[in-house]
């Protein structure tokens, strides 16, 4: 189905199932422990051996000699796989760092060997018997050191192509002439996804055919990347990923676990399973790279932005992509004179890659503090300042509009709901016992990409509907919204729908990432259901456009036939994909929101605790309010982590992330999260897709950390521009202890 004109009325508008709060259909298996994750598939293939990954002890250099003799003789060991003996394999173009290295080492804890043994304990023990002589060379580990030398990257495409700053108008002249100016530099640290299920895979070969049970957000991408890696056609690869224990971008692309499992399985002629250990996830896999961002704002005295510049520096391995931290700035606020640019340093740290709202999250961490600072300089309320600079068109291309843009209403409704009017304009005014208390706000903004997505829907002789698509559910609720979509389209109750996901034998869906999953995958199911409805109507010689599907029946021309009767003679299938034409590119399909935060700062110790959070957002039709809300509060929680604690610390001498476990890389725990509220504005975006829905998983995190930072400033009067805002950065500037 080609979607190239605004969606008129369609069966989804009935909203009998879609849009209603619906308990997840995968809830019973998840809460009873019956949902099988990748490493747990004892059921799928017999005789699985255990693989344990050994990572490089140095960040950069070469393996001079690797002695595996003792390890090979250790009890239970079947094989030590290294780059030297692994047989042919390549690096997919979507992996910057090699997933099994040697002799060249590109980063710390890069995989250099897989130990395959009969048991996990034996494999882990044998790993300690491998002796490696390294020739270490000095690497580049300090982002700030390359501030003045890193070249420009990226152009209008956003990532990694043309090398130019993007300009609209004359920023320098307008900034020079502006009566009120801000010029400030912000930094965001390296962050780690730390989804609760570490990367894990089971691989089995049958001749030259490879099957992997893995944990991936993108089944079709995994097939492609495995095809590139193992130099075999995609048809010979099957990827299964029905349950994914979180990803946040870390599982968009294949990682060492699946490549090592497949190499190990090939080497020992048996299925092999590999999980990356928690401490290894930090340096072995990918992360959100650190940024240094300079923002300049020039305003008139009424608070209208006339000049806005956002320049970002990030680092990555040679060939890696930059953090697109300036992307939101290009579209969020008005201003005639604009400059955005990205620079990229080459760093010999682990590979930087996508993490929840890549670019947008760290970019908004900086921009939305800058907006708070400028509001203060202007003596304006920060909500009002943002409203004053709203734009209904793309500031760089004024004839390009947003399909929907309710930023102002998000800010206004949120302010009213949150009690924003009680916020003191000056900081350090409100005290509650030993705590300074303050409020902060930020905007939230993220585009919602249109992506092709396919599905197959079958009407079974029982009258049940079976949906098959390789879409994944990484916690986002895909199973349920897909079931809701099929139920709505086919006019059956939800419990008549079965959803099977995460198998490359199914039609390829958009996958889970970049808040493109929900809207596109359900639209693909919509398209397949349209096909199935046509098949049903044809079978009954009904006019498809006049057939109404409701209560398990199809009705047209005073005929009413149960779906079970239609399929009695054999199942009927509809398969199709949603595809998008030029309309989707003619407008911005965007989502907007506002975050409000109340934070308390301990007057003595500088400890920060977030007390209240509210998010208001407009993100198209909300398919399942309860799981959409969960996405929101989850991102708000992750934003609190980004604001207050998350930082992978680089050892600039040796080139690795030092705090590489969950005790030392702190993420929020229950006690860090108190009251959270979410409001969704009514919106059905007819330009977006037949579901009239957009995504919100990335929107939800943009701005959160800045809202916390702004609340901290309002509470205690200390402005911190370097994340995370830990107490040591507040302590010497806190108000005197009374």
């Amino acid at each position, binding site marked *: 189905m080609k979607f190239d004109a605004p969606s008129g009325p369609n069966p989804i508008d009935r909203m009998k199932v879609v849009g209603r709060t619906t308990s997840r259909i995968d809830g019973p298996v998840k809460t009873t422990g019956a949902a099988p994750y990748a490493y747990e598939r004892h059921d799928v293939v017999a005789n699985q051996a255990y693989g344990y990954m050994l990572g490089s002890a140095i960040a950069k250099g070469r393996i001079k000699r690797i002695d595996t003799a003792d390890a090979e003789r250790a009890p239970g060991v079947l094989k030590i796989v290294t780059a030297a003996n692994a047989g042919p394999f390549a690096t997919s173009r979507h992996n910057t760092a090699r997933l099994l290295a040697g002799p060249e080492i590109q980063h710390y804890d890069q995989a250099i060997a897989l130990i395959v043994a009969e048991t996990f304990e034996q494999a882990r023990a044998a790993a300690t018997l491998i002796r490696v002589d390294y020739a270490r060379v000095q690497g580049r580990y300090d982002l700030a050191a390359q501030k003045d030398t890193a070249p420009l990257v990226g152009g209008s495409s956003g990532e990694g192509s043309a090398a130019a700053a993007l300009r609209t108008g004359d920023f320098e002249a307008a900034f020079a002439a502006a009566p009120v100016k801000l010029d400030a530099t912000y930094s965001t640290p390296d962050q780690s996804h730390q989804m609760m299920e570490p990367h894990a895979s089971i691989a089995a070969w049958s001749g030259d055919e490879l099957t992997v049970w893995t944990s991936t957000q993108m089944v079709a991408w995994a097939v492609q990347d495995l095809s590139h890696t193992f130099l075999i056609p995609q048809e010979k690869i099957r990827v299964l990923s029905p349950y994914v224990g979180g990803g946040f971008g870390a599982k968009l692309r294949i990682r060492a676990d699946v490549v090592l499992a497949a190499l190990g399985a090939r080497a020992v002629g048996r299925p092999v399973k590999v999980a990356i250990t928690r401490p290894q996830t930090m340096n072995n896999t990918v992360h959100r790279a650190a940024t240094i961002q300079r923002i300049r704002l020039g305003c008139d005295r009424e608070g209208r932005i006339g000049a806005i510049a956002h320049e970002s520096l990030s680092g990555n391995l040679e060939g890696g992509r930059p953090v697109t931290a300036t992307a939101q700035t290009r579209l969020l606020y008005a201003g005639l004179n604009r400059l955005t640019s990205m620079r990229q340093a080459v760093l010999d740290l682990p590979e930087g890659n996508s993490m929840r709202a890549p670019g947008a999250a760290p970019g908004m961490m900086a921009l939305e503090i800058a907006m708070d600072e400028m509001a203060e300089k202007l003596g304006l309320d920060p909500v009002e300042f943002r409203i004053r600079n709203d734009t209904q068109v793309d500031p760089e291309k004024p004839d390009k509009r947003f399909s929907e843009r309710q930023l102002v209403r998000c800010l206004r409704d949120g302010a009213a709901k949150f009690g924003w009017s009680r916020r003191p304009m000056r900081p350090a005014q409100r005290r509650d016992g030993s705590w300074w208390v303050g409020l902060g706000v930020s905007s939230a903004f993220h585009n919602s990409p249109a992506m092709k997505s396919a599905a197959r829907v079958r009407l079974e002789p029982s009258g049940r509907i079976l949906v098959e698509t390789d879409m994944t559910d990484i916690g986002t609720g895909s199973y349920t919204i897909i079931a809701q979509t099929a139920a709505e389209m086919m006019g059956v109750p939800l419990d008549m729908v079965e959803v099977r996901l995460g198998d490359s034998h199914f039609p390829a869906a958009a996958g889970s990432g970049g808040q493109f999953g929900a809207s596109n995958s359900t639209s693909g199911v919509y398209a397949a259901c349209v096909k199935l409805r046509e098949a049903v109507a044809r079978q009954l010689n009904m006019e498809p456009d006049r057939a109404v599907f409701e209560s398990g029946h199809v009705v047209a021309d005073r005929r009413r036939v149960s779906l079970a009767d239609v399929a009695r003679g054999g199942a009927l299938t509809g398969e199709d994909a949603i595809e998008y034409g030029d309309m989707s590119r003619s407008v911005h399909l965007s989502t907007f929101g506002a975050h409000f935060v109340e934070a308390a700062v301990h007057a003595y110790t500088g400890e920060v605790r977030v007390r209240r959070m509210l998010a208001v957002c407009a993100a198209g039709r909300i398919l399942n309010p309860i799981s959409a809300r969960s996405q929101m509060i989850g991102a708000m929680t992750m934003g609190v982590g980004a604001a207050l604690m998350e930082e992978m610390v680089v050892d600039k001498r040796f080139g690795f992330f030092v705090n590489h476990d969950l*005790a030392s890389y702190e993420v929020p725990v229950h006690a860090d*999260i*108190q009251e959270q509220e979410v409001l969704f504005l009514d919106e059905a975006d007819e330009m977006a897709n037949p579901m009239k829905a957009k995504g919100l998983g990335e929107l939800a995190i943009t701005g959160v950390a800045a809202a916390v930072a702004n609340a901290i400033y309002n509470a205690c009067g200390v402005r911190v521009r370097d994340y995370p805002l830990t107490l040591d950065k507040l302590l010497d500037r806190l108000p005197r202890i009374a």
Partner: protein
Amino acid sequence: MDDDRKLELSRRGLLVGSAAAAAATAVPSAGTQATPLRPNPATMPVSFEVNGTRYDLDLDTRTTLLDALREHLKLTGTKKGCDHGQCGACTVLVNGERINACLSLAVQHSGDAVTTIEGLGTIEQLHPMQAAFIKHDSYQCGYCTPGQICSAVAVLDEIKRGVPSHAQVDIAARPDPSDAELRERMSGNICRCGAYSNIVEAMAEVAGART
């Protein structure tokens, strides 16, 4: 180019004594002191009860309770999130108390009674906490969920038994199932998807504090 020498020099200032510099020339991989190879791993008989069923196993002494459950008994509802006691995904009840199954050797548990998520309830007959988690959408990816639920069940029992927590203003007083108590006591169970608020809602309902 081999920069070892340069690096040694730069490190000499950082490290103490010449042994450090020697270590830097060939940084060993994890624990590479030459150690004699041992013969076959030590195994031992272990007997314990899991979800009411007695198991007699012969296990490598190194096998954790977690791996005994997941790899030997194939009770994979208990999750390995970090294997270092830093996330709580492996929480099970041993003799009625919650512990991290990853930081316990199976051999330590001979004679113990273990309850895992599979023992709390089934799809057909959910435990009230499992039902409340579904109702309040107290999970997303589901990987920490079994640990959260085991912990949640134990927390309500701990509050009932008067086990104190950091959230109490008066440490000598009897605790109640307030939100602050629940949040503090559940802090050993990390949920990266961030379902914390919904987990507290589910627990409060089961505790009878809310519906």
